[in-house]
């Protein structure tokens, strides 16, 4: 008897929570963030979150949007798509979030994107780089707020095709991101400069600690240029091995994000010089007042320089806030309509969300690592700005992918 009564009491308790919480949330705009906050990826996702907070705190300090405060809640998906999807579901069903955002994991991003489509909730992908997100799996409710592998590959190929190298070696992390970035770079390089040849490939497992055997082998093969498709901690591991073997002084090589703070900061002054890289944000370039203001504010708040992912988080927060403001109501379809084609000022100049595929149009900075007396780490020098119109896939190309 007693147990049954307790159970009934417990049910009442649960029911109260289920009914009370949504009404409590109604006077707020709720954003649910699913991202990886354990493991090496955290180095990037923390900056997304902190950049986002910076934008949202400013909006809330001015009274919020549509007289509502913006509130967010985070879930750690631990880099696992199944956990990420379950958490996104929980955020939608229980927390009744108005907007979903997050994740550095392409697998999770695609799974959550599918959920967003079914539940009709706008989903802002912050740091997953799969081109499928807005390409073949793209739909009305998903937005991509950072560059994807196709964009990165095209931007790199755009610059590399003008260089005199012929014999290329391709290598990278043996998982989707590695292959996608290598494939995108190589495919577009071949298109832009039909003279290039691939003389070999090597692929290592994700998290490979020791690159020396791979590098000595590639040096033996003696290519003109190496495309290195690593991500995350592999970026630093490869650069350290490149420095130890002298690869950077013998054969030039390119890594997407090689010139980014996330890769160069941990190595301090020991990072290899002369490595080619692409990035969509550098806190010291372009040296404009807007960029300086943003990096100073980030530095003041978090006591560190913002990485490329900080800009993504910051702009996602701003687009969501401005989107709701323009929409005039808290409604998914109205928000989407408001955001399509919207342009906002950013630390690196005006940025727009392309109406046709919901891709944020970001420039790419192609640079080469070099020392700078101002910092105790290497920076990206000789930066070439590749503007979105020079490398982004056209609307027709993206929409064609969605049809197949």
């Amino acid at each position: 008897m007693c147990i049954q009564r307790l159970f009934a009491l417990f049910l009442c308790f649960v029911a109260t929570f289920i009914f009370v919480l949504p009404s409590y949330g109604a006077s707020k705009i709720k954003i649910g963030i699913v991202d990886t906050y354990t493991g090496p990826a955290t180095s990037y996702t923390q900056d997304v979150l902190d950049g986002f907070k910076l934008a949202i705190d400013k909006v809330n300090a001015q009274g919020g949007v549509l007289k509502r405060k913006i509130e967010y809640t985070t879930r750690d998906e631990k880099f696992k798509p199944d956990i990420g999807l379950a958490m996104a579901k929980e955020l939608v069903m229980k927390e009744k979030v108005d907007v979903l955002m997050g994740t550095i994991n392409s697998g999770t991003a695609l799974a959550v994107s599918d959920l967003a489509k079914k539940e009709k909730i706008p989903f802002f992908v912050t740091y997953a780089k799969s081109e499928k997100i807005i390409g073949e799996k793209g739909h009305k409710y998903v937005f991509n707020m950072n560059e994807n592998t196709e964009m990165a590959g095209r931007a790199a190929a755009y610059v590399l095709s003008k260089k005199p190298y012929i014999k290329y070696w391709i290598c990278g992390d043996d998982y989707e991101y590695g292959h996608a970035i290598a494939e995108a770079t190589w495919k577009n390089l071949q298109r832009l400069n039909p003279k290039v040849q691939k003389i070999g490939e090597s692929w290592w497992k994700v998290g490979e600690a020791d690159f020396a055997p791979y590098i000595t082998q590639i040096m033996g093969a003696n290519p003109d240029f190496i495309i290195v498709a690593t991500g995350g901690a592999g970026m630093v591991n490869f650069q350290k091995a490149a420095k130890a073997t002298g690869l950077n002084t013998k054969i030039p090589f390119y890594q997407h994000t090689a010139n980014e703070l996330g890769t160069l900061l941990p190595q301090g002054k020991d990072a290899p010089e002369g490595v080619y890289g692409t990035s969509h944000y550098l806190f010291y370039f372009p040296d404009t007042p807007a960029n300086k203001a943003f990096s100073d504010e980030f530095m003041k708040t978090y006591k560190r320089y913002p990485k490329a992912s900080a800009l993504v988080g910051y702009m996602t927060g701003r687009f969501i806030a401005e989107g709701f403001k323009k929409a005039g109501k808290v409604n998914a379809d109205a928000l989407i309509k408001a955001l399509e084609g919207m342009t906002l000022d950013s630390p690196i100049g005006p940025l727009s969300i392309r109406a046709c595929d919901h891709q944020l149009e970001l420039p790419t900075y192609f640079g080469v690592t070099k020392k700078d007396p101002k910092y105790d780490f290497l920076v990206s020098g000789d930066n070439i700005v590749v503007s979105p119109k020079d490398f982004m896939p056209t609307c027709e190309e993206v929409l064609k992918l969605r049809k197949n």
Partner: protein
Amino acid sequence: MDIVYSVLPPQFLSQVLVGLSRTTILFIVASGLSLILGVLRIPNVAHGSLYMIGAFVSYSIAKLFGGGPSSYWWALLITPFVIALISFVVERGVFQFLYEREHLMLLLLTFAFSLVFGDLVKLIWGVEYKSVPVPGAFQGFVPLFGGIPFPLYNLFLLCVGPVVALILWFIVNKTKIGKISRAAAVDREMVGAVGINVSWVFATVFVIGCLLAGLGGVLVAPTVSVTLGMDHTLIIEAFLIVIIGGLGNIWGALLGALIFGLSQSLGILLWPKFGIVIPYLAVVVVLLIKPTGLLKSTW
């Protein structure tokens, strides 16, 4: 030299050397794992975490001593003892009460420890990648075989490997604690029955094993980015090495590490596109031929 190169191309020789330097790290970590597995019968999944902590501690110590090229030597000297201290606390605090439990239970417990250690590292050192400077004398590279550049630090690793193996051989074969621990591996009740405090023998062996994990972490630190998750890849490789070498046999760990390290580096040379599978293929072949591992297992 040209005569040698006509039989063994310089590329091959350089890959062998690189493979051997990788073997050093694998052997040091796997021998510690094997020691604990053999004597204490604990499949210590948290062994990889101690390797990771070793790398992080060496970062902190190097920073403490100025972060310059020579600061690494202090890290190399001090870190293994920090790890030994941590493992001593864990052993006396938790494991000493659990030796009689089933392996599955111990496996789960050490797995839990690896999660706890992972989060502790995140709490203490944060989420940023860390980098430990290569010690001054071993920065850069030398042209070896046919002018192929070879990292100096890897040469240093090549010297450390045999030294550690010798010290281990000495401890296991020539010291009292080594002899007792070998006896305890075979029959722990009998060792207890002749009046030896088995509990302290176990504590010593556990600490030595973990110290090796920490040493591996310090040695690998200058060549990689010190990061969360570096424990996962390594622990899998270490277990494979211990399994193909023979559970609990330190020389098995050496043999396993040699097979793993060399098949990896030569696999890359022969078949760069799929070199990644060669070490695992080697493991499969070994287990097909000898499912109990190459050398005598103590289990």
